[in-house]
């Protein structure tokens, strides 16, 4: 058979699960290495891959590892349906199909010389973690690095021990939950309430926001109210995706394709689209 001019972008590469770590009742972090050996695919913070579970389906999952460590890919996945269940219940040694990386990246470079504030809601911390790693790699070139992290309840928080390590590495880490019992010693309330108290210089701040869409709208508006220009606030959007190539048509949000024009968008550009129901 003649070699096609262009290789199929739909064909995944097999990756083996080398480590499984349960984060919460329904969320796992998987470390993956190419089944054929060699380095894993290189990516920028904020990008995602399409993850294929044999016979079950394929879903877009943000990369949540360190972009400077090319030996393995890290994905934090929450069980939300048949495909994610197949992915999360795969044993160590099991194989997934991976293709990518796709999408736009968090503009960590743009934050250099100023403050970086990261606002994460729920599993939204997973796509932001690579940005935090990238920021820590250039810590001296940044002013304040602040992490505002909100979850539903204490048992739903991700990356617990790592939050402490980040504090030690010079990140102002503030964690809050929507609800908790009396054993929780930290703040209770929505993550947007942390913005007022966070102590960053709004004129030199770049804000990265990721979480449920409602949370992102409120948080982005909160940053703007605090004086951060809307062109310096960035969101990561999510839509149904089957191809990640801009060809299946499903991830459209008005004129943009979330898979290629996003998922990271500047708030000033995406805000009018977010305001329209059923767009």
């Amino acid at each position, binding site marked *: 058979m003649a070699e096609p001019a262009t290789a*199929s972008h739909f064909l995944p590469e097999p990756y083996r699960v080398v480590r499984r770590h349960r984060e919460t009742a329904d969320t796992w972090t998987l470390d993956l290495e190419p089944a054929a050996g060699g380095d894993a695919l290189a990516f920028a913070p904020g990008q995602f891959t399409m993850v294929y579970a044999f016979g079950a389906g394929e879903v877009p999952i943000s990369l949540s590892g360190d972009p400077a460590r090319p030996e393995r890919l890290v994905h934090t996945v929450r069980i939300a349906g048949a495909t994610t269940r197949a992915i999360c219940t795969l044993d160590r040694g099991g194989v997934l199909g991976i293709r990518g990386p796709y999408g736009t990246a968090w503009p960590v470079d743009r934050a250099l010389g100023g403050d970086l504030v990261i606002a994460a809601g729920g599993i939204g911390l997973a796509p932001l973690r690579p940005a935090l790693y990238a920021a820590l790699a250039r810590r001296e070139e940044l002013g304040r690095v602040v992490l505002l992290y909100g979850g539903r309840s204490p048992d739903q928080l991700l990356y617990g021990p790592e939050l402490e390590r980040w504090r030690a590495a010079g990140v102002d880490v503030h964690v809050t939950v929507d609800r908790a019992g009396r054993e929780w010693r930290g703040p209770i309330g929505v993550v947007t309430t942390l913005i007022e108290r966070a102590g960053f210089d709004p004129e030199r701040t770049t804000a990265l926001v990721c979480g449920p869409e409602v949370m992102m709208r409120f948080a982005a508006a909160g940053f703007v109210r605090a004086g951060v220009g809307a062109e310096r606030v960035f969101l990561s959007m999510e839509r149904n995706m089957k191809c990640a190539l801009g060809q299946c048509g499903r991830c459209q949000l008005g004129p943009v394709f979330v898979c290629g024009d996003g998922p990271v968008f500047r708030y000033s550009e995406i805000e009018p689209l977010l305001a329209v129901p059923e767009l």
Partner: protein
Amino acid sequence: MKVLDPRGLEALLEALVERGYRLIGPTVADGAIVYEEIRSIADLPAGWTDEQEAGTYRLRRRDDDALFGYAVGPQSWKRVLHPPSVTLFRARRDGDGGMELVDGAEEPEPLAFIGVRSCDLHAIARLDRVLLGGRFVDAAYEARRGRVFVVAVNCGVAASTCFCVSMETGPRATSGYDVALTELLEDGDRHYLAEAGTGRGEELLAELPGREATAGEVEAGEQVVERTAASMGRELDTEGLPELLAASRDHPRWDEVADRCLTCGNCTMVCPTCFCTTVEDVTDLAGTEAERRQVWDSCFTLDFTYLHGGGVRTSPRGRYRHWLTHKLGTWHDQFGSSGCVGCGRCIAWCPVGIDITEEAAALREAPE
């Protein structure tokens, strides 16, 4: 420009077969003119025409035996170039927990499209833009596309649903073909003006029986196209349309059309530029072999925008608004041109007769 007689046209088809092409062309089937494999001019819809209106398509007999005396039917060339079902890859589990993944692409066979109308030439160019001209090339589409020989036909008939003139996509074929024909009917005789659009079209025409066209015949060919252009059934004013649509998200017309729209998706199936797909995964009973297929989908399906337990866009109003706004508006942002080529298929094949030209005009009216 050359003139072919009916023997010349048959010779054209034979020459293509000889070069190894399988012929796909118009033929009558199930009460419509569809694009299927044809063997000779005997398979073409001689003496047939189509009567089309909103929600209506009927074949009628002509009082001559023109081979191309009709507009377009429910199918477009998208069915061949971007097929309804394509195997993307096959996966096989091996003994030690591994997975072997094999591209599902097959060597595409050479195809000759016979009788491609100008609107459909533009539609093919739009699909090229989406599937070849974006961030990623669809390799299977590229392979199929590269093995196609195009014989276009300049329209001698416009249906009442046609509006290619408004969309600047016809009726004259201007690019994207190897050979373009114009059917001339005179005193019961059929002649074909033929011009080449490519080097290989040139080579093919040189082999066929015929002669140089006279000035009168060239003029007659012009008049065929002019008459067709003058008899367009509908118009669509495209002036400022993308901006208008972007500013009209709350226009009451959306509620009005939503009352009529069945969200059946016929429009997306017959539209030659609708490209949306979904994927299906199938496995064998033993669970050792799996296949992933790309299949046609429509933005009118309820789970098109499924996310986190529900759809983002589920009301008929939302879904119709998306389809129209994409086709006439955001296509420009994404691909630099309109998605509509004025073929009118969506008007004829909508079971409730929703008319894209009427909707576009209604959206221009200020809401009361």
